[in-house]
């Protein structure tokens, strides 16, 4: 595999000295790292390390206190969340947030909305462009369901899907936006080893098929070690380590943060 690793390559995502304070508490403190174009990076750390906060900062849910988020080299700090999503950064949630009362298909169809351009008058009067574009949207949604093998559950209400499929649907919905960067917040939470294995394969597949870059938060070490090419470790909002999976896993500071100090208690 030939990968262009020239240092002049613009990373799809770069955090520069990202800081977030909630009152007196610094949840994220001067965190800097990059996600390479087409790469899968992992963000790990003990509970409360600030991982989800970083996702919320990237996607604009929280306002950044200091530092910057660069997407393809240009700052997206301070943009409205929906604009950041428009640019191609999308995410899933730690506690699944589907449109619960809608069918599987409608969940995906809703997220396809950016592929259509018809205006509200065209919609109210069902003009030709509305009909044409609605048809295209429906095809796109069905195609995505097919690729992620959710077709047979298309009419099931999202809330009634089994847990693993709800996670899968959330990823499908994110893909409906044609993202360039996908942020997965603990996608394997609550999954058994079998499902985790499946998910690992799925993440690899969708990255290739949709030519995505992925940043994943995870506690399952096998998943992180299995799919990520680069790992960033956080502890109490600060960077603890950054590098290839093997190097990080053997870093004494990381071992200490996860397992505690061996002596001297």
């Amino acid at each position, binding site marked *: 595999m030939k990968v262009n690793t020239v240092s002049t390559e613009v990373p799809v995502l770069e955090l520069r000295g990202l800081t977030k304070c909630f009152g007196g508490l610094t949840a994220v403190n001067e965190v800097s790292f990059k996600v390479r174009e087409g790469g899968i990076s992992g963000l790990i750390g003990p509970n409360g390390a600030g991982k989800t906060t970083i996702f919320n900062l990237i996607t604009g849910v929280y306002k950044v206190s200091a530092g910057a988020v660069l997407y393809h080299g240009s700052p997206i700090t301070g943009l409205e969340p*929906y604009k950041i*999503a428009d640019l191609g950064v999308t995410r899933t949630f730690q506690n699944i947030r589907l449109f619960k009362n*809608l069918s599987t298909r409608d969940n995906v169809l809703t997220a396809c909305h950016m592929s259509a351009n018809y205006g509200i008058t065209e919609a109210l009067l069902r003009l030709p462009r509305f009909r044409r574009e609605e048809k295209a949207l429906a095809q796109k949604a069905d195609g995505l369901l097919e690729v992620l093998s959710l077709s047979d559950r298309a009419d099931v209400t999202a809330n009634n899907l089994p847990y693993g499929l709800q996670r899968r649907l959330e990823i499908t919905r994110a893909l409906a936006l044609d993202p360039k960067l996908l942020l997965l917040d603990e996608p394997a939470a609550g999954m058994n080893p079998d499902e985790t294995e499946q998910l690992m394969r799925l993440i690899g597949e969708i990255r290739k098929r949709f030519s995505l870059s992925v940043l994943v938060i995870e506690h399952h070490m096998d998943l992180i070690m299995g799919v990520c090419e680069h790992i960033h470790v956080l502890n109490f909002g600060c960077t603890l380590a950054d590098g290839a999976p093997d190097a990080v896993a053997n870093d004494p500071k990381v071992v200490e943060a996860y397992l505690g100090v061996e002596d001297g208690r």
Partner: protein
Amino acid sequence: MEYIQGIVILIGINLIAVLGLSILTGFTGLFSFGHGGFMAIGAYISAVITARLHLRFALAIVAGAVLAGVISVFIGRLTLNLKGDYFCIATMGFGEAVRIIFNNIPYVGGARGWESLPKLTNIWMVLVIDVVFVVITWNLINSRFGRNMVAVREEELAAQMAGINVYRHKMIALVLSAAFAGIAGALMAQYIQFIRPTMFNMAKSTDLTIIVIFGGLGSISGSIVGTIILVALPEVFRTFSQWRLVFYGLAVILIMVGRPQGLMGGLELTPSGIRRALAARKAKLEFAAATAGTASAGESGAVK
């Protein structure tokens, strides 16, 4: 016959306001207790145009829609960033403010009301407008705008992450609902031929919202069936004389207790809607059967 016709017209007029509110409350998830205010705006501006300026009724109806819509943009700017309950309280304040403002304008009759307006609304006009608005609402809900509104109702944060401009879609829903209410107000004024501010008080606003909830949030058929039943009900109970509002209240309570998701519960009376309802029912039964199986397995497992 005229009496029946009168009830049909009242149902038809209320249906327009309810459809608008259905977009806002049923599909976008914003509860309003101030849409009587938008009806009042439509009623008064249309009365000014027909009774004072002697212009065409069609113009009066359009003016009612436009003015209510424009005012709702200002209200929306101030209130749409408020979370759930606070928006609700703000709309309540708006409705009352409108009523009190009209109370103090002698030009339109003040608190005593404004009588002998021209009778311009007729049953055919109301029915045609109803059909048009049901179709328009249906088209809206089945477009990307409608789906985005439902997404905002279901899960606001996820909607934002799906690239939906939450504020804009709330605004579209609010403006449409206000314009619909404005039209209903205009038709009402020109039908009853008498308007006064208390007709559009909080009780009126609440009535509209109750109909939407009663019919089922997120269902156009529910809004239609709800309007027919709840507008006709007080007339049916008229024989009970002063007890009729008690019976009306009792009927609403009984249905809300027996069927909290509303009459239609988010489903539509269309072939595909009925199919979905049946599929959901089947899935529920299968799920019940499956969980019954695992429950017994769990019991046997707990023994060891």
